């Protein structure tokens, strides 16, 4: 590598074990460049959840180093990692992404309400930004709905709108399409791609469905990366 690209995620000799348990992760090296869209193939039991927990800063990486956006997460305290996640990472779960007692609008607005830095990155007011994100994902008409009335597909789009609001540098999507039927999977991934690209964010997309890998710039297999095999 002549010119080192700017790295969004950079892990070296990353190992992790839950207290009293066997090692679940042992990754010699993982590099994800800024602006990349990466497909990470992770069947269940491959340490996928643990790796995402580490990158998102919910778990503390010891030993080894894990740098996300140039921050050494191992050196940050737990509250500092929470703040880091709030301002730099958008997260989409497999399902049940939404707080049931908030409206669609309030759900999308959550990250910028919680984090001031992410609020400052908005171009205009919160309402405008929420409307724009909803528009981007084709859910502008649902803003005032109760989230319990949405279909699963609509819920995932709301979650995606929330993940890109305030343009976080890294968007992590953890099996976001596994609850959708095949037609909608591709449509959803298209939408996610477009909006992440528009925001200039890096996308880390995790799935056990290899059929989606072809749509990404780069596909990684956690089984190959992880020496401890989950």
């Amino acid at each position, binding site marked *: 590598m002549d010119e080192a690209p700017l790295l969004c995620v950079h892990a070296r000799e990353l190992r992790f074990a839950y207290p009293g348990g066997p090692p679940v992760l042992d990754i010699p090296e993982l590099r994800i460049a800024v602006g990349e869209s990466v497909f990470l193939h992770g069947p269940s039991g491959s340490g996928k*959840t643990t790796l995402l927990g580490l990158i998102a800063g*919910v778990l503390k990486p010891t030993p080894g180093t894990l740098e996300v956006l140039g921050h050494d997460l191992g050196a940050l305290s*737990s509250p500092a990692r929470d703040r880091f996640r*709030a301002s730099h*990472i958008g997260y989409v*779960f497999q399902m049940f992404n939404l*707080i049931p007692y908030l409206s669609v609008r*309030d759900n999308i607005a959550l990250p910028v*309400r919680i984090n001031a830095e992410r609020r400052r990155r908005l171009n205009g007011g919160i309402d405008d930004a929420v409307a724009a994100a909803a528009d981007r994902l084709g859910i502008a008409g649902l803003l005032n709905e109760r989230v319990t009335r949405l279909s699963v597909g609509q819920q995932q789009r709301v979650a995606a709108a929330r993940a890109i609001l305030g343009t976080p540098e890294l968007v992590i999507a*953890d099996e976001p399409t596994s609850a959708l039927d095949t037609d909608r999977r591709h449509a959803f991934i298209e939408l996610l791609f477009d909006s992440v690209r528009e925001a200039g964010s890096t996308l880390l997309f995790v799935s056990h469905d290899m059929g989606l890998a072809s749509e990404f710039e780069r596909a990684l297999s956690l089984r190959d990366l992880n020496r401890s095999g989950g």
Partner: protein
Amino acid sequence: MLLHLARKSLGNRLLTSLLTALSIGFSVALLVGVENVRTGMRESFSNTISGTDLIVGSRGGSIQLLLYSVFGMGTPVANIPYDTWKAYDEHPAVSWTIPYALGDSHRGFRVIGTNESFYEHYRYRGGQSIELAEGRPAEGVFEVVLGAHVATELGYGLGERVAVTHGMSAVGFMNHDDLPFEVVGILESTFTPVDRAIYVTLEGISAIHIGWESGAPPMPGQGMAAEEVRALEEVPVTQITSFFLGAEQRVLTLQLQREISTNEEVPLSAVIPGVALGEMWRGIGYAEDGLRVVSGFVVLVGMLGMLVSIYTSLEARRREMAILRALGVGPKRIVALLVLEAGMLSIIGAALGIGGVYSGLAILQPWIEGQFGLYIPIGALSGIQLVFVGAVIVLGFLAGLVPAIKAYRTALHDGLSVRV
């Protein structure tokens, strides 16, 4: 932000939240209401008699004197010579006196011999005076006036003939049947022991006892028929039991009290009603502490209910916690969120409870006064009530800590991965 979330979250579980707040509301209402009733009871108790500076009786305990002269309970140990009372009645420092001659009853109700001064000077509950509902004060030897309760209980009206028993037994076997009295007046209700007595003149009491000087019923031929008594120009009054006294000036009260208690001819006691009432209230007031303890426990039960309701909702909210964690909300803010929810519930509960007490009082106050003679004042919350309400709210926040700490642990353990 957290406040917004807490509000929405409570609103989402509206029925549970409302029921929880209501149960706290009831306990707060009980706590505050008991305090109101306490105040009402103490006030109506210490207002049983007012405006009187001293109560004078034969030497004895002050509470005993208070009991037999004001509350119509128990019997006096000795009497006061008529002349001794008269001397104080005419004392320059004394404005007025009300004599009481006790010891007789009619069907279980006390008969009190007194004079016109009773109708003029007796005061209760902040200076209210004795009013006649019907008729006029007793003036003649054989005239009686009934307390309001006596009149309704016995169903007597004006003009009714009444016999008076010597001694306090309800079914005195030595009835003064030969001296029938006539009802000439009925008093307005006062909700004090005044309602439970029958009033005659001092002469009337004496007349009953003519021929009884030896302590036994008159021998045949020694007693006097009613006509004979009526024929007397003046019935001699030789003794009374106690008297109420109003001083010319309040400041003279202590001096008068000393003078009366050190009377060398007759052993007397003079008590200041307020002081004796206070002493007596301390003696019986412990009962209200029991009420306080009970309502305190009710509050604890209400709190426990809230704790349980939040705690049981946590399992269903694990997902919500994971979402908040993914959005970068720290575990401490999750604790704060749950504590805030508990605090808000107890604040709403406290508001409901206080509102309940005030509206309940506004509706029931006249009824309670009419039924029990208990006037419960409606006013701003007292210091102790504010302390109680504050304590309930603080307790509510603290109770929220229990589920919050559980949520804190779960959030740390679950991280972003909750399988639903």
